[in-house]
């Protein structure tokens, strides 16, 4: 993990409420693994004060990409950045997704809700590179929440689409679609998911019911992203007992069975 105060924005893509920035930062890129994240400074001023946690959406030798939804002031400021400007980033942070050494030939179920899709693209590529078969379940409230369908399709993975309002694909929650699909297809080697808490909790239940190991990426408001503030904790089993564990350091990805849900 390191601080690149001047990661150059070399490409920008915009959809309705969603944004992608490609950043030149070879040193961060070199270390990046799927499921890890960056802490991005959105302003050089004391307002907004904190950095924003954003997943690493993709990487190559030269740099990394972030993909995010405009959801508040910080992401709105980021959304206004232009190619040629620089960003101050910390990363790569956290532990990321565990990919089995024996991924080859196996099938994986990747589930992303809305902006939660962000880390799954990097993961899907990595699984592909290791000879695995990622199947992507991509859900949103409505059609506009699914800007990355083609990008995933270009990986030659199966992409299952759902929208809460039925405007595209399976009508209903992405978890309902996953349940239906898992019921009728072969059991995947592992589930990977990222999205809001209620969705993660639901997936934890599905995975437990079918006895599929699952890796869930959790969210929490973060003060530092580097384990220094104890602000980002979630309840996780450690040595049999529930503890407040820093997700920036030991997560944001956890094995589903470790996570204690008391929502």
């Amino acid at each position, binding site marked *: 993990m390191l*601080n690149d105060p001047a990661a150059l924005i070399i490409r920008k893509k915009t959809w309705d409420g969603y944004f992608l920035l490609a950043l030149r930062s070879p040193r961060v890129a070199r270390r990046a693994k799927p499921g890890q994240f960056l802490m991005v400074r959105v302003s050089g001023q004391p307002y907004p004060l904190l950095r924003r946690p954003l997943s690493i959406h993709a990487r190559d030798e030269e740099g990394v990409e972030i993909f995010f939804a405009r959801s508040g002031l910080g992401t709105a400021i980021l959304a206004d950045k232009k190619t040629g400007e620089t960003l101050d980033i910390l990363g790569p942070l956290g532990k990321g997704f565990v990919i089995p050494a024996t991924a080859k030939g196996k099938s994986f179920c990747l589930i992303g809700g809305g902006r939660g899709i962000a880390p799954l693209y990097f993961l899907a590529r990595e699984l592909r590179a290791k000879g695995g078969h990622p199947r992507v379940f991509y859900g949103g409230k409505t059609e506009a929440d699914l800007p990355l369908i083609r990008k995933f399709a270009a990986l030659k993975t199966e992409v299952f689409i759902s929208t809460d309002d039925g405007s595209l694909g399976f009508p209903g929650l992405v978890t309902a679609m996953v349940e239906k699909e898992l019921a009728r297809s072969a059991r995947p080697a592992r589930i990977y998911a990222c999205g809001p808490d209620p969705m993660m909790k639901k997936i934890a239940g599905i995975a437990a019911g079918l006895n599929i190991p699952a890796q869930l990426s959790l969210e929490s408001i973060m003060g530092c992203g*580097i384990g220094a503030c104890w602000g980002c904790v979630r309840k996780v089993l450690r040595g049999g007992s529930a503890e407040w564990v820093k997700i920036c350091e030991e997560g944001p990805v956890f094995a589903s069975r470790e996570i204690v849900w008391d929502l």
Partner: protein
Amino acid sequence: MDLTIDLGFLKLRNPVLAASGTFGYGLEFKPFVNLDKLGGIVVKGLYFNPRPGNPPPRLAESASGLINSIGLQGIGVRAFCEKILPQLQGLRTPIIVNVCGETDEEYAAVIDYLNKDGRIAGFELNISCPNVKKEGRCPALSPEHTFSLVKLAKESSRLPLIVKLSPNVTDIVSVARAAEEAGADAISLINTLLAMAVDIETRRPRLANTFGGLSGPAVKPIALRMVYQVASRVRIPVIGMGGIMTGRDALEFLIVGAKAVEVGTANFVDPGASVRIVREINEFCREKKIKKIEDIIGTLKIDEVQASR
């Protein structure tokens, strides 16, 4: 440029320390700063036993500020000595332990336990955390409790004792004087201001603990005022903090009389902040041809018309 500071009981390479609770146990910042360039490191608050801390959400952002309700989650003194201190060995920078207690006796127990450890340069007695008792209650809200607790701690302690005060009081000077009379070697302030934020969508507090402590640039004007009031009324050294983001901020605290400063929330925003601030102080002094940082301390000029009020 001579940046050294003599606190009487401790010599510092420079006046910039990392503030407790915002710098982990120091180790977290090794990738970002050369820890040896700091004046000192105040590690995260330690109880005798491990502490679970408060339920999340523990953080909420406000305008130029951060509200936290961590509640002093920590590993306890034993794990600290066994697991952390060995990793900090070899540092030239003094390590100061921020001492916490549920009861007065626990404070004394933490001190007792750590007294023997030659790797620690001193204690910062945290009698001012707003996140552990109901509605921010803590010893530093009362001069009487401050006096008795500091006295007890001082009797237990073989190391220098810095007492950290709360800004949530009517009369900061009376609390500072109580600490001084009870034998404190230095005073540090401010801890966070008791605060709150509400999510109007859910109508719930943004922090699970309802209340939290406000820090960051938002509080700097209040912190600076209190540091000035205290520094001009006690004889022991004062370590100032609250919202310091830059060398210029730090210099304001030194000018009103702080002998050193601690950098807190800034470490989250810029993990290199503490060492950058040392550099910025250095540059300012060079530019102004100030030879010794001690020549700046307490040099606030008050005009006649001001003094008359």
